Every structure is written in C-alpha cells, then in structure tokens.
C-alpha cells in the first residue's frame, strides 16, 4: 500500500509526467507574447481573420437593427413627411450657410496665400456609424462601420458634433476600432478657449479626463472649455475636448490638478466623423 502511494506521489516527476510539456508550452507562450508585443502580429492576424468575428458582430447588432427597422416601418407616414420637410428646410439653410462659408474659405485661402501661411486644416472626413458592441472582451472601445476601404488609417482622429471622441487604433477592411479619449494613458495637447493656456490632458480609464500638474498661476476657471491645440500634429486645432469641472490643489502648492468632463460621452452619439490621416 505504502509502495503504491509513494509511486503515485513520484509520478509527476518521472518521465511519464507532463511537466516537460507544461514548461515547454509556458515558455512558448511567453515567447509568442513577447514577439507579438514587439511586432504586433496579432493586429495583422486579426485583420486577416476579421471574417470570423464579423458574423458575431452581425448577430450582436441584429436585434437592435431589426427593432430599428420595424420601428421605421411602423412610424406614421405623416410624421415622416413632416420630418422630411423640416430636414429639407434645414438642408436649405445649411446650403445657404455653406455658400457663405465657401466664400469665407476662399477669402481665407487667398489671405493665407498672401501671408504665406500653410493650410493647417483640410476637412477630409468620412462619417461612420458606431457599431455594437461598445466593448470587446471587457475592454471599452468603439467599433465603427468604416475601414481601410473608406481611407481610414491607424491614428486617424475621431470626433462628432459635440467634440473629440478618440483615435483609431485598429483598422480592418470595413471596421475600425476607436480608442476613447477617456482610455488609460490617452494624451491630448490642449489649449484653453482664449488660447492663453496650453497643457497635456490625459485619460485615466475613468469617465473624466485629467491635467495632472497645471501651474497654479494659469487662470483656468470652472466651466472653461478646452480645445485641441493642433501641436501634436494628430488632432486638428480647435476641436472641443471638454470643460473644467473640478480644480484640486496638490501637495505642491505651485500646481493644481484639473478634472475635465469630456464633451462627448459614449451614450450621447451614434455617428462619428473620422478625419482621414494626412490631414491634421
């Protein structure tokens, strides 16, 4: 009996034991992880196997899509006609404003030419719709239905009518993943509305943004809006980032910590605009 127990206890460390295969596989996986972290092969692989995940996205989206379509068909015709009319008048108004803008833009261009200033912003944008889910494997992110085919590249800034949303981090053929500005370690170069203060704003994974150490002499008040500065050459100048909601004194009396509420929250939009790269 004792002999039997002893031999059973030792079995793990004999040639029969799977310990060698465990160690080999563990080393293999660590090597693969390191290699992937350096060379980003997972991103390339994901682009190639996107067709496997697409049906799952379709399945997740299907219920809301069906409900939306049923809702659309069940809507009263009169209501829709009224909406069409109001949209038409809005479009007419916008066209009139656009004409004025075209004139101003042309004037601006010629003035810039005269003053020899480089054109900083070209509004080459594409409009994308946010696709469910709003998370993948627990990590919050946005998926939009535009990809490489629409001229989107990794790093393209994403915004909506309220302000800056984030930056494209993965691009597939027809889908892109957007990292939100509130994500951990997300950094944006910002200026105040009156242009007197410049700082780096960080996301920290919470719903708010933060300026960790703003010199106390900077005159920033509650409710002040912050805009992109354009200095980072990624985000065009003047996109609204958020407004100051809290100023916290730090241990060092020369600096304050600023808490900013983002201008956009994930629940507040279903469409986003992606500024195509090469057009900061």
């Amino acid at each position, binding site marked *: 009996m004792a002999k039997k127990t002893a031999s059973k206890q030792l079995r*793990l460390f004999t040639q029969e034991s799977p310990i060698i295969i*465990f160690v080999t596989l563990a080393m293999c996986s660590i090597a693969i992880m390191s290699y992937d972290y350096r060379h980003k092969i997972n991103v390339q692989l*994901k682009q190639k*196997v996107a067709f496997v995940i697409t049906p799952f996205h379709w399945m997740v989206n299907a219920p809301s899509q069906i409900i939306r379509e049923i809702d659309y068909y069940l809507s009263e015709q009169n209501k829709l006609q009224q909406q069409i009319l109001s949209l038409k008048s809005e479009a007419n108004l916008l066209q009139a404003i656009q004409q004025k803008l075209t004139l101003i833009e042309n004037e601006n261009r010629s003035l810039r030419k005269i003053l020899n200033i480089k054109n900083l912003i070209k509004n080459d944008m594409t409009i994308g719709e946010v696709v469910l889910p709003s998370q993948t494997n627990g990590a919050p992110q946005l998926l939009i239905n535009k990809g490489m085919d629409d001229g989107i590249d990794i790093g393209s800034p994403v915004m909506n009518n309220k302000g800056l949303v984030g930056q494209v981090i993965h691009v597939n053929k027809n889908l892109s993943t957007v990292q939100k500005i509130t*994500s951990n370690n997300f950094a944006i170069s910002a200026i105040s509305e009156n242009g007197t203060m410049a700082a780096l704003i960080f996301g920290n994974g919470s719903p708010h943004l933060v300026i960790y150490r703003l010199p106390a002499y900077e005159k920033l008040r509650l409710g002040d809006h912050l805009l992109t500065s354009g200095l980072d050459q990624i985000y065009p100048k003047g996109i609204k980032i958020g407004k100051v909601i809290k100023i916290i004194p730090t241990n060092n009396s020369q600096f304050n910590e600023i808490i900013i509420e983002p201008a956009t929250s994930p629940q507040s939009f279903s469409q986003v605009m992606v500024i195509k790269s090469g057009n900061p």
Partner: protein
Amino acid sequence: MIQQKSLNNQQKLYVLGLFLITILLTQISLPFIPIGSLPDYFIAWAVALISVNNKYFSVMKIFFLGLVADILIGQLIGQYGFTFLLIYVLHFFISKMLAIQSNGQKTVLGVILVLSGLLIDYMTSATYEIDNYETSALLKIIFTIITFLIYRLIFEMKLKAI
C-alpha cells in the same frame, strides 16, 4: 501521464458550441453590468471545462483553444494560451496533492482557479488597463465566478450525461 478519454461527436459539439457562444458573449455589453466589471467569459469557460473533467482535454488542446481565443478577441497572442495552461497546471497539481472529491471541494477549487486565471490575465495585460476602482474589479471577479458556475453546470449536465 494523464490518461485521455476521447469525447464523442455530440460532446465535442457541445464544447465547441459553448466556445462559440463564449466568443459571442465577449462581444455583448450587458446593460446592467458596468463595462469594466463584465466577466471574463473565456476564463470561466476554461476553468469549467478543466474542472469538470480534464481527462477529456489534453494540455495541448487547451493551449491551442487559448491561442484561438487570442487570435479572435485577445490583446496578445499567447495570453489566453498561457492563462489556460497555468489554470490546467494548477488544477493538475492541486488534484494530485489534495483529495478533491466532493462537489463543494470542486467548486472551491474552481473559484481558486478563476481567481488565479484573472490574476494571470491582469499580470500579462499589454495595456495595463486594470480597472481603476476596487469595486469594479471585485464585481468582475464575482461575475466571472457566477459565469463559471453556470458553465460548470452546463458541462456537468452535457459532458457527463451523454
């Protein structure tokens, strides 16, 4: 050496079906759970599969399924592979050292494996985007354990019944 038993076609179908459902679940954000607290379905699935009966699956198969999960939804290739492997090893060693026989003991072992899996997952995280708030991390652990118990129930019903 662990003696491997082979699964019949219907059992294989259940395991594969649950794997596909797990992929689907990872894409869904449940409205009543904050995004940072969503369970790690793959760890729950792997622990349930291993703890119900690891004789059905060799370490190679578990590792391979981990790699597939990594390619489809993971951050890094090898992360889930590594996590599943360590869960398998932990289960193997604990089962060898302790006499885990009753249902309660198996459940506690499963919970320990889930906690270990989540810890390994955090340690190998490429983004270090660990939940900022203790409450959301705690909720994630609780929801993952609940998911594990549900998976375990399904596996026990289906893998043992057929």
